[in-house]
């Protein structure tokens, strides 16, 4: 194995059902239903998935949802903005913990 991540492994995702077919079926049925057009469009859902893929830093998901976003008509501008949302939330999640720091520091300080 040259690398833990190989793009050729992505199409093998469905093989995960070989050892637990019932669970896999439930998962993939649910997965398909989640990404179907609803109150959110397929394009909007793909953009959310792309943003989440960057938050969890999954190379398979980034590959898959970059392609899906393009095929659902998202522009590179929209895709880039979606990843800035990821970045803002990730950065904000760190920064908001400064309230803990400030609270503890205040308690300890004169």
């Amino acid at each position, binding site marked *: 194995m040259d690398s833990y991540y190989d793009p050729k492994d992505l199409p093998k995702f469905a093989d995960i059902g070989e050892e637990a077919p019932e669970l896999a079926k439930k998962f993939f049925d649910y997965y398909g239903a989640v990404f179907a057009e609803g109150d959110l*469009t397929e*394009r909007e859902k793909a953009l959310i998935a792309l943003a989440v893929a960057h938050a969890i830093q999954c190379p398979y998901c980034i590959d898959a949802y970059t392609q899906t976003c*393009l095929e*659902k*008509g998202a*522009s*590179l501008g929209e895709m880039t903005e979606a990843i800035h949302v990821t970045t803002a939330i990730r950065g904000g999640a760190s920064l908001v913990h400064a309230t803990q720091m400030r609270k503890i520091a205040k308690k300890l300080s004169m």
Partner: protein
Amino acid sequence: MSQKTAPLASSPDVSAELAQSLGIRPFAQTLVEHGLDLIRGETTTLQINLGLLCNHTCRHCHLEAGPGRTELMNRKTVDTVVAYARRESFQTVDITGGAPELNPNLGYLIETIAPEAPRLMLRVNLTAIAQQNTNYLLDLCMANRVVIVASFPSVSSSQTDAQRGKGVLDRSVAMLGKLNALGYGKNGTGLELNLVSNPTGAFLPVAQSHAEKKFRSDLERKWGISFNNLFTFANVPLGRFLTWLIDSGNLDSYMKKLFSGFNPCAVAGLMCRTLVSVNWNGYLYDCDFNLSKGVYLAGHKRHISEMDGLPGSGTRIPTGNHCYACTAGSGFS
């Protein structure tokens, strides 16, 4: 990728050997496996390719059109084509290129063929029409109720310019604004403006209804532009687009995408079943893609001046692996 302009005869093609090496069955075999045959129905559309001269060298162009091309339909061939249209009853005449706006005989063709065509379509690239004889051509289009079909791949400048050339989005938007000001794409004017969006890379197009809704909203919001219909088509792996697929390492995945997306239900509605295409020299083809490959109408070289009637219903249409682009998803109709 380099912007190559090669002679048509050497245009790249997805050969049987190449397809086999990618694990893709020949298109003809796929048809047989689905119990299908691609045969001509009633021919209702005459598509006229005025030549390969274009002011762009778009990366997805299956004809490898560009500024260096010299293939142009001359006045004599135009007269022969118009005479054929006069003899037969086509519901639609569809003028394409290259950029047909750059052929000096375009105005003459519109004037002479319009009375023979209940629906006359002109495929423009929005920047060429701004380049020369603009007001003359637009007046002619309005007077003859010519349907304008304009290439507009994306509302993103980086994506549009990557496909068509630097600054193309801004110039295209400016021409759409001018067309709107003339009444094109506006309700109640009878002047129809349709957009065509090809993907700006090695991926399949958005479902047409979704794309139209998004483009309508974006064009109105960003530039106050309106249009009638939007059509989305997959890029066809021929010519300059195939060269780009090979150079960029995308050929394998793109062909597999087209192959796995084969939709047997799309075959009945393919445009080649109802269209005959004539090139700048007056020779006939089943579609613009077979024209690109040099595969003649029903496999036989025939000049439009030799035609006695419409192409026969029931004749078999020559296919190749490029046909997978027209049968992926909802198809190319």
